[in-house]
């Protein structure tokens, strides 16, 4: 009954530690260090990392960039959204607003794109399904991620940051085409 009584030794920090605890602490510490070094390891050798590239922006500035891209590379329209097919390797933009991901992007498989994301109003969550890549989209910040779609198909962008009553209708698309 000593867990809630003062320790039986006045100088409790001098009491030697049992073998079992020392072994466990050693094992746990090694595991903790392995987990820690996995993260820098993945930065060096893994393929899924976020860049630290981001800029402060305003909704108007970001909107202007999106509009310029849509203007230049629009190839069609679907459900009221422009479908945009920017050239491989280029900067592509997607904005989140209540309650749309705009525009629809058409990308080529195995090509890299610099994807810029920002929000026009509240916070949104860029959740690419079914690959399940999730990024936070914050107003006032423009995040740049280089993506390399490695499978062709239709992908949905679900909003997974609560953004009000129409949150569940906020659905966008990214199409990945075979080249």
């Amino acid at each position, binding site marked *: 009954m000593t867990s809630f009584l003062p320790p039986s030794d006045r100088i409790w920090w001098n009491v030697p530690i049992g073998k079992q605890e020392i072994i466990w602490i050693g094992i746990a510490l090694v*595991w903790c260090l392995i987990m820690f070094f996995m993260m820098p390891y993945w930065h060096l050798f893994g393929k899924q990392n976020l860049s630290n590239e981001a800029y402060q922006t305003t909704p108007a500035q970001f909107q202007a960039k999106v509009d310029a891209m849509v203007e230049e590379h629009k190839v069609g329209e679907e459900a009221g959204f422009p479908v945009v097919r920017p050239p491989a390797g280029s900067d592509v933009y997607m904005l989140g607003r209540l309650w749309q991901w705009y525009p629809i992007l058409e990308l080529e498989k195995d090509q890299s794109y610099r994807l810029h994301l920002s929000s026009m109003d509240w916070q949104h969550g860029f959740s690419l399904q079914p690959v399940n890549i999730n*990024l936070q989209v914050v107003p006032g910040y423009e995040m740049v991620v280089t993506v390399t779609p490695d499978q062709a198909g239709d992908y949905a962008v679900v909003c*997974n940051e609560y953004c009000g009553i129409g949150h569940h209708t906020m659905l966008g698309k990214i199409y990945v085409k075979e080249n």
Partner: protein
Amino acid sequence: MARFRVCPDSGFFFDKSAESLMKVNAVAGVVALLVAGIMAIGVILTRWQEIHLLPADMFYQALTSHGINALIFWIIFFEMAILYFASSTLLRSRLAAPRWAWTGFILMVIGAVMNNVAVFQGKSSVMMTSYVPMQAEPHFYLGLILFAVGALIGCFVFLGTLVIARDDKTYDGSIPLVTFGALTACIIAVFTIACGAIILVPTFLWSIGYINHIDAEMYRVIWWGLGHSSQQINVAAHVSVWYLIIGILFGARPMSEKVSRSAFLLYILFLQLASAHHILVDPGISSEWKVFNTSYAMYLAVLASMIHGLTVPGSMEVAQRAKGLTKGMFEWLRKAPWGNPVFSGFFMSLVLFGFIGGITGVVMGTEQINLIIHNTIYVPAHFHATVVTGTTLTFMALTYLLIPVLFRRALFLPWVAKMQTYVFAGGMTLMILFMLGAGTLGVSRRHWDMDFTGAALSFDYPGTAYMMMAVGGVGGVLGILGGVMFMVVVLGSLLFGKKLDAHAGLLQGFGFPMKAAAYTVEQPAQLQMAPKPVEEHGSGGFEAPGTFVLAMALLVSFIVYYFINWDYLASVWPLS
């Protein structure tokens, strides 16, 4: 006039004002849990897509209320009771500044009511996180601020009580381990509340128009100093309660005071860094910052939890073996009092917190793995494992312990209490496991409709995701049933439980002091140091082999699950 009452069953001394404060805080906490539980019905039955109970506005309203009442009000009210118990009762000291403590409590009540009113009025469905620039009504933030100020006062009353106990020499030697753990929780709470004040005060001023802009990313970084750290208070508090429960039930002594206290010290130093878990996929934050913080500086707080994971059951095992339960690896565990809800609640919370809550938390808090988990329903699944099957289940077990000791009432319908911990833990575990699965399939958290009704475009989740949300729903309903059983036992005990003390009337159950005659001790005798163990610690090699086997099982599950997730991450689109 005598100040203390002695509980004839447990031998604990209760200071008159501390006793009332513990009762009112515990009762207020249970009321908040009740509100959170009622809201949980709406949440779980809406996320179960085949039922889809509530319309969107009510769903988000219920989810906001559920989150705030469960994660903030229930837990912090209850923790105030624990702080007063761990200081005044365990140290046999009078409570410092009881009037301030009451002021703190009243502020907390006003704040909690004000915040709840704001949410129920319907214009503050902003979720617990209230991310700017989405705006709630001013009294939503003001309620939280008042609640935090009240809790801060409670923390200082706790610290003041430690000072008084030391000055009055109410105990010999060092403070007990349980009080040390409570002190850890208190220090983390002060940090947490400071973060809350730094961000919520300007947000409140913004909501009434005195400030025109709050940076959304700055809000996230500082808010999580409140949001995540408040859950770290729980970790420190419920680990302390684990030590208390093994001490009371088994007479267990910590395997090593030094090891357990050092682990608490690691919590103080590193646990709060985990606020970074929430901003791993945010713009404008560097990888170095993320890696250092999300890993609590090389996982030193995880190390602390792994240490407690060994020493808590290990201390129990040593105590049980000393009583002769030495057969095989696990006789000490097999012959534990599984019919006593205090024990079953404690032990299940230990296992579920470690195996599910701990492992999933570390995995999703890994910088890159967070990419495949952020804001999916995996996240609430994880924190239900920590906060519900960890903290809440522990606090339920403690409640069963306190009803006879503090409230002086016998448990009402003890057979219901006996089953309650199993129903609650079982239901919640089912829900958690299937929600983890659904999250892996990309199902979003805080989302009213996985069919995306009304969206211009369309997307279909796989059928498995629907199945998982449905099974999770069944688990959630079972969990709610367990919650109802808890409420029946607790309220039943306070209203109809057999009086163990002639003075324990109806009003006494809700904070009134007992008749003056019940308080017979002016100042208890000095609390003596624990008796020395018969056999000196550390002499006999492996004292708790069964626990070591359990710990290795935890480690193996941890390693396997950790690398499975890296493997899964490696399969998604390359990003750089």
